[in-house]
């Protein structure tokens, strides 16, 4: 995320992409082959720690990348920054949806077995859905603005404004709702339920999925730049 090059460094991208793909493959093998301690309700679903939780981390990373580039739009007025902010938001929203859906499936077949509960008002679930709503509004707002440079500036203002209000959710929502997540009230802390061997897979999985985000995001930025150079329209 350096300041100077407006275009993507393709060679660096290719190298990092190959590393990431191998990395994620190794993580996938480790996730299924390493034995983990048996936990009563969780059983094998404890392995979802390697897949569901990194979605949330990846979306947070995407939100930061998007807000950073929105800030740069306001500073420099560079449309390439706008392309980056938009694509980070799009891929971030995609990971948010994946985190939401996998979380719903996990909780349904683990904690809510034998009930009709699909949607529970878990704080993190609510926060992800709110972040998705914000990005939905962000995309709608972009559609309502015609001139590309005006669109870049005003969408960046909205993105940053939203980024200042969302941290309150971290404080407000957990006081309202019960959680299934570790560390919440009545639940064991993260360190109590994760064996060291799980953390050995978990942290690389986070890095792997954030890397996967970076690969997809860069692909889309490259396509959007191409489109911008041909049609002068940065929207993708």
């Amino acid at each position, binding site marked *: 995320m350096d300041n100077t090059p407006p275009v993507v460094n393709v060679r660096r991208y290719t190298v990092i992409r190959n590393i990431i793909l191998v990395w994620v493959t190794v993580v996938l093998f480790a996730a299924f082959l390493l034995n983990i301690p048996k936990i009563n309700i969780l059983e094998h679903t404890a392995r979802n720690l390697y897949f569901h939780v990194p979605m949330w981390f990846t979306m947070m990373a995407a939100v930061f990348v998007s807000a950073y580039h929105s800030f740069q739009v306001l500073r420099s007025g560079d449309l390439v920054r706008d392309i980056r902010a938009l694509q980070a938001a799009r891929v971030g929203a995609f990971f948010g949806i994946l985190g939401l859906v996998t979380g719903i499936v996990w909780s349904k077949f683990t904690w809510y077995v034998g009930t009709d509960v699909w949607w529970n008002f878990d704080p993190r679930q609510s926060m992800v859905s709110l972040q998705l*709503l914000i990005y939905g509004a962000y995309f709608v*707002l972009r559609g309502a603005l015609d001139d590309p440079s005006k669109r870049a*500036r005003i969408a960046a203002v909205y993105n940053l*404004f939203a980024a200042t*209000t969302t941290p309150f*959710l971290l404080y407000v929502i957990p006081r309202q709702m019960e959680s299934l997540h570790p560390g919440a009230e009545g639940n064991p802390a993260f360190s109590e339920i994760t064996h060291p061997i799980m953390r050995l897979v978990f942290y690389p999985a986070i890095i792997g999925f954030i890397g996967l985000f970076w690969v997809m995001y860069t692909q889309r930025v490259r396509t959007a730049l191409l489109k911008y150079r041909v049609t002068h329209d940065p929207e993708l």
Partner: protein
Amino acid sequence: MNWIRGSWAVLQKDVQLEMRSRYALNMLLMFVLSSLLLIAFAIGQESVSERMQSALLWIVILFSASIGLGRSFVAEEERGTVLLLQLNVPGSQVFTGKLVFNFLLLLAVDLVSLVVFALLLNMVIESWWLLVLSLVLGSVGLAGATTLLAAIIARASNKGPLLPVLLFPLLIPLLLSVVRASRAALEGGLGFSGASGDLQTIALFSGVVITAAVLLFDYVWQD
């Protein structure tokens, strides 16, 4: 001093224009009254819990804000006075003037909806000062967010119902704490310690929102 004078001038202009036509005020009040009546008819004789009462009250206030306050900058564009303001008054003063005007409108909405709601739903208010405090503090944050977003939608080509879409996701933290504070005021028995956390959150949220809005407003306002 200059800064206050500029903001005051913008506020005065808006108030005078409003007093001449009363368009925004009448529309807001009619919206509040009709939605409150709708709620009352829909609920009927059923007694509503304190939580539902405060939630409904705030939803009405939120919706009327999103419908009525969106006009503040659109009206400038329609009258063709944007350029005049841009040239004569710095952005932060325009924002402050509009913010205070929107806040005053919201206070009127608060007052009317509270009185009508209390009559229609037989609301019993245990602690007046807590309710008033949460309404006023909540309105500050609401006015701050709405004023910036109103400036944003004035720039959009398709203005229609854009403001609620942009506004609601941002206001969830405010709505949650404000509903809790008003609920505490309706239930009573909690006193200051029970609601102080929520009031602090509301005040902090309003402060952060207004600071961010002032910082960002210039980018929306300048061409």
